[in-house]
């Protein structure tokens, strides 16, 4: 714990030398989320304390990935994917929590700079479609991610206790992508970020499932053969078992 405080103190020193007496301390209840065979989603608790006035904003970002969004259109009576857009990099997971509505905390420029809030995400979208523009694709991407539970529908509420301590639960659904996540905690005062802290959170597959996935990708031929043999053997077994 002492070392943590030291690290945080060093971080604070870098970020806001002028306001060294206003630290922000935060941590997660766990730094590793293991996707095991029984995984059905999990909650991670984020907690911390602030010294002095200010609002706290938490942003959770999953590893950035390229995406393709496709749009259907009616052609010859049936609905066919006609247009598409390449999204160069979008966070695979994105969730924001805050002690107050974002608009009341900071001006647009600040939210844009730190990419806080879905409206302020920087997604460069390359549209190849004459029927819909980038905005439509952007909205669609966010909507589809929200439907999968990967982007937050709303800015989650952070509760303050005695104006110093705060806590919030971050929910990760069962289909959460693996990788290194960044949990960013901002302390905002008078519309400016005066302190910030970033904590990594690793989400990774553990156990049999992880081994299977690695095996299927690295030794695809062996995996395929084993799958066939397994299937043939169980078919034969079934026939033998029920034969009279």
């Amino acid at each position: 714990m002492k070392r943590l405080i030291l690290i945080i103190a060093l971080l604070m020193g870098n970020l806001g030398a002028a306001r060294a007496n206003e630290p922000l301390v935060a941590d997660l209840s766990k730094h590793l989320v293991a996707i095991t065979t029984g995984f059905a989603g999990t909650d991670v608790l984020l907690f911390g304390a602030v010294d002095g006035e200010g609002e706290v904003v938490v942003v959770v970002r999953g590893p950035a990935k390229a995406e393709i969004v496709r749009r259907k259109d009616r052609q010859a009576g049936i609905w066919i994917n006609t247009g598409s857009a390449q999204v160069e990099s979008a966070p695979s997971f994105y969730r924001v929590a805050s002690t107050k509505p974002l608009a009341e905390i900071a001006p647009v420029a600040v939210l844009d700079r730190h990419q806080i809030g879905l409206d302020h995400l920087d997604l460069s979208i390359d549209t190849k479609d004459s029927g819909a523009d980038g905005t439509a694709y952007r909205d669609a991407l966010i909507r589809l991610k929200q439907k999968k539970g990967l982007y937050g529908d709303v800015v989650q509420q952070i509760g303050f206790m005695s104006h110093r301590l705060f806590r919030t639960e971050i929910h990760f659904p069962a289909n959460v992508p693996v990788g290194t996540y960044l949990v960013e905690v901002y302390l905002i005062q008078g519309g400016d970020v005066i302190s910030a802290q970033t904590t990594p959170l690793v989400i990774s597959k553990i156990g049999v499932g992880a081994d299977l996935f690695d095996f299927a990708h690295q030794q695809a031929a062996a995996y395929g053969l084993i799958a066939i043999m397994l299937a043939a053997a169980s078919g034969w077994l079934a026939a033998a078992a029920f034969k009279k």
Partner: protein
Amino acid sequence: MQIYLPIAEMSVNVFLILGLGGGVGFMSGLFGVGGGFLMTPLLIFLGIPPAVAVGTEAAQIVASSVSGVLAHWRRGNVDLKMGLILTMGGFVGSFGGVELFKWLRGMGQVDLVIALCYVVFLGIVGGMMFIESIQSLVQSHRAGEAGVARKKLHQHTWIHGLPFKIRFRRSKLYISAVLPLSLGLLVGVLAAIMGVGGGFIMVPAMIYLLGMPTSVVVGTSLFQIIFVTANSTFLHATRNFTVDVVLALLLLLGGVIGAQIGAKMSVRMKGEQLRVLLALIVLLVCVKLGIDLITTPTEMFTLGAGGKH
């Protein structure tokens, strides 16, 4: 109880998948069909990515055909020579099919092509089966009328003029090898794309196109399905990384039990009734998929992974 599927990368309810396997297994036991044409759309409907549904279903069909073919083999109802030629065609076909699948996936049109294939082939097969079985139901109702004029074994057409003729002793046929070879090829392509064994196309084609006697049709079809779906399983696993063994084993477990119950039930039902019922189910799946293609979707946009492997 939830279980995380390592390849599909999602968690599903174990009992739901076991039940699905059991239900489809029951149907396949009852009607003597593979059930892939029901299973793949149902898996997609459950939210399993279409590519994983197709790849995994191929593995499951290997199992159910192995289990099914053994009984036919014991009774000597497998035309080995015919089966091998169909398999050769099927191998080439499944190579082509998996490549086509990969290409369509990159283009973002794979869902559409799967759905179209289903609508067209289920429509044709279901429609034909329905008409034919209703006719025979009506005929059996008009009882008596013994001795319907004996038909010729098969009609002689241009098909019998093709070269490379081979004698198939078990099928009592002397036809060109080109015929079963190209039939195997076509069904191989469709099986790889649709995630089915292709029995529902193969069986009628063997009867009406090749003129094989019905007694050897099912056994021979199952025999070739084993090898063709084994090949597509391998190709889906190595080219698309879409075979989920955990999902396949769960489906198998339910399927085996369901198939046994179905097979016991089928003894108590009349052949024509069974075929009308099967035809109706096939048509139902066809109509459902057809409606989905035509009605305005609530969401115009879909998300596809951008990163290539």
